[in-house]
């Protein structure tokens, strides 16, 4: 409760600083926090990455299992994305089944990977209508300082790129690297007053009126989007964030 109280007290302060063009941590409005990526962090997973986005700390692990395809996509692998916002990462997270916040993050990351066609799912077919690879993308938050959307997305893409499909173990031929075709990267921005800032910290996020996550691919095309928050955005603001996502996304992609 006390930490919530502080967030509330900071609101005013953050707004005052923004009016002077300053962010709490000294960043420019259009600047991401430092990103560090440790690939193959978990050896029990088929692919993994731990990502620090400033003080936000996320691990994504990829597990591959043999299973049945969906009836409408008999020759394609299956993608399942799940996020655990465990209470270790923040006093605002609770134990138990995933809440709405976790589900939203998982779905937005899922949409980026799916619609951005990050993985060539047809190559994950073992025998049409019978057997395909099921790809679990599990997002695990460790330390929460805002913008889990982008931290999880970066970790997911990095983890996919490090994934080796364990075909031998499952008696399905030789192991092979996961066929990653595209690298959809999301960039999230929030609106506070008349300001738009990318990659919000926890404090900035708790003050923000609206949020927009935009995922783009290498060719600059958009593949997923999600608006959040109770406030609104103007069309101009939306377009600005789209532009920011394309340029910043390209820089981030180079790091995965």
């Amino acid at each position, binding site marked *: *409760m006390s930490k919530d109280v502080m967030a509330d007290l900071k609101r005013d302060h953050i707004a005052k600083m923004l009016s002077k063009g300053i962010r709490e941590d000294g960043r420019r409005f259009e600047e991401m926090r430092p990103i560090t990526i440790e690939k193959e962090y978990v050896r029990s997973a088929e692919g993994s990455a731990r990502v620090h986005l400033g003080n936000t700390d996320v*691990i994504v*692990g990829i597990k591959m*299992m043999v299973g049945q395809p969906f009836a409408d996509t008999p020759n394609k692998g299956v993608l399942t994305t799940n996020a655990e916002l465990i209470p270790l*990462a923040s006093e605002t997270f609770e134990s*138990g089944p995933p809440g709405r916040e976790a589900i939203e993050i998982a779905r937005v990351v899922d949409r980026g990977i799916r619609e951005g066609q990050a993985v060539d799912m047809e190559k994950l077919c073992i025998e049409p209508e019978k057997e395909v690879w099921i790809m679990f993308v*599990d997002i*695990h938050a460790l*330390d929460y300082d805002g913008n889990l959307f982008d931290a999880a997305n970066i970790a997911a893409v990095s983890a996919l790129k490090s994934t080796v499909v364990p075909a031998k173990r499952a008696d399905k031929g030789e192991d092979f690297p996961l066929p990653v075709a595209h690298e959809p990267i999301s960039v999230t921005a929030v609106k506070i007053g008349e300001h738009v800032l990318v990659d919000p910290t926890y404090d900035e996020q708790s003050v923000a009126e609206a949020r927009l996550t935009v995922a783009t691919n290498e060719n600059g095309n958009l593949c997923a989007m999600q608006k959040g928050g109770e406030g609104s955005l103007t069309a101009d603001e939306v377009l600005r964030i789209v532009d920011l996502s394309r340029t910043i996304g390209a820089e981030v992609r180079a790091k995965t």
Partner: protein
Amino acid sequence: MGGTPLPDGIKLMDEQGRRIDGRLPGELRPLKIEAGVLRRADGSAYLEMGHNKVMAAVYGPRECHPRHMQDPTRALVQCHYNMASFSVDDRKRPGPDRRSQEISKIISEALTHVVFTEYFPRTSIDVYIEVLQANAGTRCAGLTAASVALADAGIPMRDLVASCAAGKVANTMVLDLGKEEDNFGQADIPLGYIPRTEEVVLLQMDGDLTADEFRTGLGMAADACKKIYDVQRDALRRRYVVADDGGSEGVK
């Protein structure tokens, strides 16, 4: 444990008395502990023991939820042990199962013993243990990390709890079972121990042991806890001392 037939080609101990990962019977896996690794939590610790990777975080003392659990005379130490879905070879379904509930309970009890709970009536001290990569012995690794996280959070405590397991593999008593030894060994004894006071605060056993073997195993685990205890204390001190070597220390 016990009775599980060994797959062909797996030999838990060779003729020279070396274990499957090359260790001698009385040898621990390499241990590394770092305190204060998370920003949001009030206290935290990261631990690697062999291929185990465990994170522990402490929040509190804070208002106790659920309310009906509140104790007007003392704090509740509530541990939540959880395994990440990707921490094991076959993906674990997210969320608590019976095994993790049991582990959470016994770790809570072990930690309650060392915390001055009377000092924080009506509150909860929440301890979260996340197993990121599991390779046998995660409850011990979790308890060891959790005590460091509690001290890092500034919680008043009598002492730190160190933890490790002994067991029986290929008819030999050994320390700190690895994964294959856990799967195909004959017995496992996880121990939580306070070296200074020689108190046992967590103890389980499964498998088949003679009374003598058990006594030997308990002694081995207690001795190993002393080494682990030193690494714990070192991790806490290092957080506040300007590092001259920068690296973390391990035990052999």
